[in-house]
């Protein structure tokens, strides 16, 4: 499983090299828009969502390494 993930990640890395067109610093207006951020418009709500999912579902991880668990039962 881990091997597969590493393989997929490295494949993406090399695909990234060939598929993409270099975006210059002055062409990043779209990427700078608030609606174009991975963390979304409401990071505090997202953090609370993660807390709810952590206490109601078994799967965890994938939202960065920061943030603690809870004893929410």
């Amino acid at each position, binding site marked *: 499983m881990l091997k597969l993930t590493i393989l997929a990640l490295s494949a993406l890395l090399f695909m990234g090299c060939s598929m993409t067109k270099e975006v210059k*610093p002055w062409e990043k207006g779209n990427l*700078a828009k608030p609606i174009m951020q991975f963390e979304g418009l409401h990071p505090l709500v997202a953090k609370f969502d993660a807390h709810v999912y952590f206490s109601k579902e078994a799967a965890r991880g994938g939202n960065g390494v920061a943030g603690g668990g809870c004893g929410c039962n």
Partner: protein
Amino acid sequence: MFKKTLSALLFSSLTLMALETGETIPKDIQTQLNMEEDKVYVLNFFASWCKACKKELALVNKVHNEKITNIIGINVDKKKEEGEAFVQELELQFPVIYDEEKALVETFSPIGFPAVYYVKNNKVLHTIFGAVDNIDEQIASDIKEIK
């Protein structure tokens, strides 16, 4: 070895076309900028969507008002109106060129934003890429050195 590879990666794409220190600005761009002889100019590339630019521009405006050097702002917003609204909002006093066609910015090809170029007699003397704390003090001390 690692350092070498890293710097190769880092600079591989920017050395191709960028206008480097010591190089002369191409004739057609010189016409657009229309700078006086023997005077030092600071060219400041910015965009309305660039948060760091916004922080710096207030200080660059101060440099202009204190007549420390000549400033030319170059706005690279997609739409000129967006750039104009931004200039108005920040109450910038120095002349601003709206580079809608991207001719200027593509010629200089800065590796970071905001980008500052010190120019004299159409020759690039020095560059600053990315946000700098206290850019006003930085420009003032750089100008002193150049003069």
